């Protein structure tokens, strides 16, 4: 083992984990709050990427378009929540199915509107930096920093704001908090909106790394499901734990063998973790919502 391999492995692991964490966070917020897996999560990511593309085509700066892309995604999510999802609270399986229907609907709408082919977006931050003769892409490094700051912001949001207080109350005991005057449906709506917005942000942040096409959500979303399921319902800690373990294992295995083997290991590892800890690595779930 020489320095180069170790440094590459560490950088790849960090980068893969940060990508996983940032794309799973929106899903984790919705899962942690409502105990429901949002199967349309991949499509919210896809919408984020497409909105970044649309704003860029309208002539905005690439950074600006990436930054405001989550807003329309969150607005679409509010419409979906008000129109469909809110009728299904308490029916966990039905919510899962309905969001699956939404996912098919969104993929196909984008395909009809923009065509099935991929779109290209200019890279906002090309180039590499060098350490001891090793070259690392700058954007991936930036992504690690962005992920850390998003996590910090989320922590502050949940710990120090009024919304965060209400949200934590609803996670602990929805009935009791609604009896104490918390508008539970409103909190759920805000959470769904926040989760979708985070997914949209992930989509716009990932545009330089992936091909923007209608089915891109499907490619990312499996890993994010596995991260959330292995991580557990604790929103921030669970996602970080799941993302870090799965992401670094996959990237290190891929580095030494092949990406194909990395995929297999990812699935096997996730199944093993769930076999040992069925409720995820770190889990606190509201009893009444189970």
């Amino acid at each position, binding site marked *: 083992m020489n320095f180069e391999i170790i440094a590459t492995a560490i950088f790849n692991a960090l980068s893969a984990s940060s990508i996983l964490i940032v794309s799973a966070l929106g899903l984790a917020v919705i899962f942690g709050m409502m105990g429901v*897996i949002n199967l349309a999560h991949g499509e919210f990511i896809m919408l984020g990427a497409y909105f970044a593309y649309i704003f860029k085509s309208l002539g905005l700066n690439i950074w600006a378009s990436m930054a405001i892309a989550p807003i329309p995604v969150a607005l679409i999510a509010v419409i979906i929540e008000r129109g469909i999802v809110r009728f299904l609270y308490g029916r966990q399986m039905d919510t899962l199915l309905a969001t699956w229907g939404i996912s098919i609907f969104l993929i196909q709408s984008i395909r009809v509107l923009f065509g099935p082919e991929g779109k290209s977006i200019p890279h906002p931050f090309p180039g590499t930096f060098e350490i001891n003769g090793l070259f690392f892409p700058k954007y991936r490094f930036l992504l690690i920093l962005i992920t850390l700051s998003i996590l910090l912001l989320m922590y502050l949001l949940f710990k120090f704001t009024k919304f965060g207080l209400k949200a934590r109350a609803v996670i602990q005991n929805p009935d009791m908090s609604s009896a104490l005057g918390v508008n539970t449906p409103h909190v759920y709506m805000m959470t769904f909106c926040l989760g979708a917005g985070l997914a949209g942000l992930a989509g716009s942040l990932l545009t330089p790394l992936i091909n923007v096409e209608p089915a891109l959500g499907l490619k990312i979303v499996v890993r994010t499901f596995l991260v959330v399921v292995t991580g557990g319902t604790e929103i921030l800690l669970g996602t970080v734990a799941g993302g870090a373990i799965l992401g670094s294992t996959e990237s290190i295995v891929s580095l030494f063998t092949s990406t194909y083997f990395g995929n297999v290991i990812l699935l096997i590892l*996730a199944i093993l973790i769930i076999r040992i800890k069925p409720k995820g690595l770190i889990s606190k779930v509201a009893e009444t919502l189970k």
Partner: protein
Amino acid sequence: MKKIFRNKFLILVLIFVALPLVLSTYYVNMLSLFLIMGILALSLDLIWGYTGILSFGQGAFFGLGGYVYAITAMNLLCEVQIRHLSHYNVVNHGGTTYISILLAIIFPAVIAMILGYFLFYAKVSGVYFCIITLSLTLIFQQIIMELVEYQIGNIPIGGFNGITYVPRISIGIPFWFYYSLEDPMHFYYFVLFCTTASLVICYAICNSPFGSILTAIRDNEIRTESFGYDVRKYKVMVFTISGALAGLSGLLYCSWGSFISPASFDFFLSAETVIWVLIGGKGTLIGAFVGSFLTQFLENLLSDVLVYYWLLIMGGIFILIVLLFPKGIMGIIYRLRLSIIRSPKKQ
């Protein structure tokens, strides 16, 4: 009640036996496909409708059945001259395909059993089970897509291009004579036989004490467990059976089109299977066929006109059914019938 059901079922089977006599070859082929997909829907209905476990892994077992059939049948019956990756000539020596059929049913069943053992004995259920099986389907597909340069026996896996020139199912007596079901009508009757057999087997399972335990698990798992039943064991058993059924459907599909590729069991197949069962009404067995027939017939009719819009409409219908008619068509029929029976007759 049971006798009425049996009579109706016999009439239905007779209609299906007579149908090819009045239909063109194209529709006979389509009918075979609908029945094959009906078996897939049946496998989902058994585990979802009767046991209450939603599995998105049926697509993976379907693909697995198809691949096992293709690989074994071609290795046993054919001589393959490979020119370049997925370009190859196939000379079919002929022979019966019983071994391939058996393997293509047993292999997915064993995989389902192992997976079920891992998941159910860890008390993985509900959403977690869905996600694991969904990941299984998608990752299995990715794996097959990346196996471009590998071959099993003489057969290249072919990656995205899949395996072509898969021989049709052929029946007969080994070492004596064989008959390959190349004629669409003969193949249709074989599929019809398989469909009827699996439907009868599922009906028998659901109406046996074993079936009552499955329904009990669906309705209240904890209570069933406290009655002393080993819930985990029953779940593994039913998951194995449903894996075998999905494998059967996959091998029939592979033989139907003499072709299998990762695109044959993509994300949308799993989605569509769930839609079929939902539309037909889960937990009714026959509903799985009603849903798959209706949807595929409409799809066949309308997809030329609508092309892209078809899946859009399907997504919309899916959401509406979940919201408004969670029991599907058969649920509506049963409710209508009940209301007719219950309504007081004035004399």
